[in-house]
């Protein structure tokens, strides 16, 4: 297992290296002079020159790249061109907000997706199976930004059940401890605030969870159907075990490895989808931070935002791969 872990981590190095080159290239791929694009064509030539020096654009490309790499490895993401603040400091609360939303959505997606998939496989070719899979197909085809707007219209405007925007009520002052508001409000023992925060996360959470739920459901169904064919399942049934235990205890454990991979891959959908969901719901996460940076042409923030999200994605997929090896020991020998 240790050999596999080291081998898999070794594969990560060229990927991270390549990703750093792509992120580094962002500023160089801007058509024309980046400094001129950032400051505008009518900017003072002296200001353009200063910005070029500030961005290190007057140095040879390889020197620029090594400086960039050095900075990143030291945990320095640079300074925002708009707010002039260190990006790392600015990003922490945004990152926590995205993480909270992504984890919340993933919990919804796993609970509903896995159970929907199990139910479908268990009741194969019945109306329940067909209905669940039709629902999953609609879920995969759903533009989540549209779903977000429909949710806002229905649950906020029409029914007035849930708030339209934000992460918490503007009148609430939440003292950040973990920066996860659901946890922070509980730690502060303020149940009123906790309910308010929970109400705020429900709509963006559901919108973001739609596609992963559908994909997890489809994968779970396929994987369960494969496992349910095996002899040991027939034996478990022959022993008189209730179908519920056969499915949830025996089959699910063996069907879980491919489902786990899909869950890992869906994190990419969540991180990408966060830009859309956060924009609709005014959720102050990395997605919204990135979106605002694109509008303001703050390339330092764009680079950092993409770097951070891609790194998280790569690391989570590594963890998923290692867990896969744990669930399916045969993988080590490949």
């Amino acid at each position: 297992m240790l050999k596999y872990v080291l081998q898999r981590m070794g594969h990560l190095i060229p990927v991270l290296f390549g990703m750093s080159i792509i992120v580094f290239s962002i500023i160089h791929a801007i058509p024309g002079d980046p400094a001129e694009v950032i400051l505008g064509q009518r900017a003072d030539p002296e200001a353009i020159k200063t910005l070029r020096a500030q961005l290190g654009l007057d140095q040879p490309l390889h020197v620029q790249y090594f400086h960039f790499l050095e900075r990143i490895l030291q945990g320095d993401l640079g300074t925002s061109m708009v707010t002039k603040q260190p990006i790392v400091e600015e990003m922490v609360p945004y990152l926590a907000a995205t993480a909270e939303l992504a984890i919340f959505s993933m919990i919804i997606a796993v609970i509903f997706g896995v159970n929907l998939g199990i139910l479908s496989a268990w009741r194969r070719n019945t109306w329940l199976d067909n209905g669940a899979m039709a629902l999953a197909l609609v879920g995969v085809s759903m533009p989540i930004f549209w779903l977000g707007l429909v949710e806002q219209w229905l649950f906020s405007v029409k029914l007035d059940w849930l708030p339209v925007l934000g992460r918490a009520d503007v009148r609430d002052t939440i003292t950040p401890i973990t920066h996860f508001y659901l946890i922070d409000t509980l730690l502060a023992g303020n149940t009123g605030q906790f309910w308010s925060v929970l109400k705020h996360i429900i709509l963006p959470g559901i919108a973001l969870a739609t596609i992963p739920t559908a994909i997890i459901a489809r994968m779970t169904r396929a994987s369960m159907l494969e496992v349910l064919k095996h002899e040991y399942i027939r034996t478990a049934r022959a022993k008189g075990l209730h179908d519920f235990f056969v499915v949830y205890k025996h089959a699910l454990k063996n069907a879980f490895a491919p489902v786990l991979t899909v869950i890992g891959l869906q994190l990419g959908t969540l991180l990408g989808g966060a830009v859309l969901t956060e924009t609709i719901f005014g959720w102050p996460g990395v997605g919204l931070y990135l979106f605002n940076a694109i509008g303001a042409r703050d390339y330092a923030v764009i680079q950092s935002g993409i770097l951070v999200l891609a790194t998280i994605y790569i690391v989570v997929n590594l963890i998923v791969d290692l867990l896969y090896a744990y669930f399916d020991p045969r993988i080590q020998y490949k």
Partner: protein
Amino acid sequence: MQTDRVHANQSVSINSNYQKARSPWMEGWRRLRKQKAALIGGGIVILFVLIGLLAPVLAPYDPTEQNLKINLQPPSSDHWLGTDDAGRDVFSRLLYGARISLTIGFFSVIGSLVIGGLLGLLAGYFGKWIDTLISRLFDMMLAFPSILLAIAIVAILGPGLFNALLAIAIINIPTFGRLIRSRVLSVKQEEYIMAARAQGMTQWRLIFRHVLPNSWVPLIVQGTLGIGTAVLDAAALGFLGLGAQPPDAEWGKMLSDAKGYITNAPWLMLCPGIAIMLSVLGFNMFGDGLRDALDPKER
């Protein structure tokens, strides 16, 4: 005499069965026809293609013509789906939107299919350092959540329809590349390829005459599913203001414009959303059916 005829009929029947079994496309079509969901999906796709092609004939108004005197009107007999904030006819914009969304979908998939297919073919066929180089490039691209990479590309190149198309084509290159690579890896081990090589056929001729024609079934399936995803991505970029620009009638942009009017004009956001979902659903249903029909092993 009669015996002869029976033999002849048997021979025709055996021959036709033999021909059917020899033609994977006919076999695929036979299987596809049996799948209701795929046929419904195909029907939806054809409907949207027709809407896109016939938009200038079907649309009752110019999709970009503004008339502030009649803005934000609810659906009526004059304007079937109402009017938007600039007084433009929503129904006409929706019809023209099909044209833009499907164009991005088709052309971005063709772009990623050609480039990804070629890279995958080179990697799979030649192996060694070419394979390592191309496979690592795919790994690097797949290290980014796809829509995030598209956003990054458009953020660099600047917002616009063509740049959105380009970004969507780029992000899908590794999907097609990996697919064709794995297919080529298995096809090149087949005996007929070895035989052709032994006969002295040149490498490029071998690739285009034998390897490619035997590797493109999964590409067609992925291409169909990919168009649906591309339509969705194009709408997402349009929604973020990175794709189509005003006054283009693009579904994602229409949704983005409708955002501010969900309280007083909800019809503005309902129709483009349903159009996006239906068209993507059509491609997904048809693609799933195609996969089952053409490549039963993938089921």
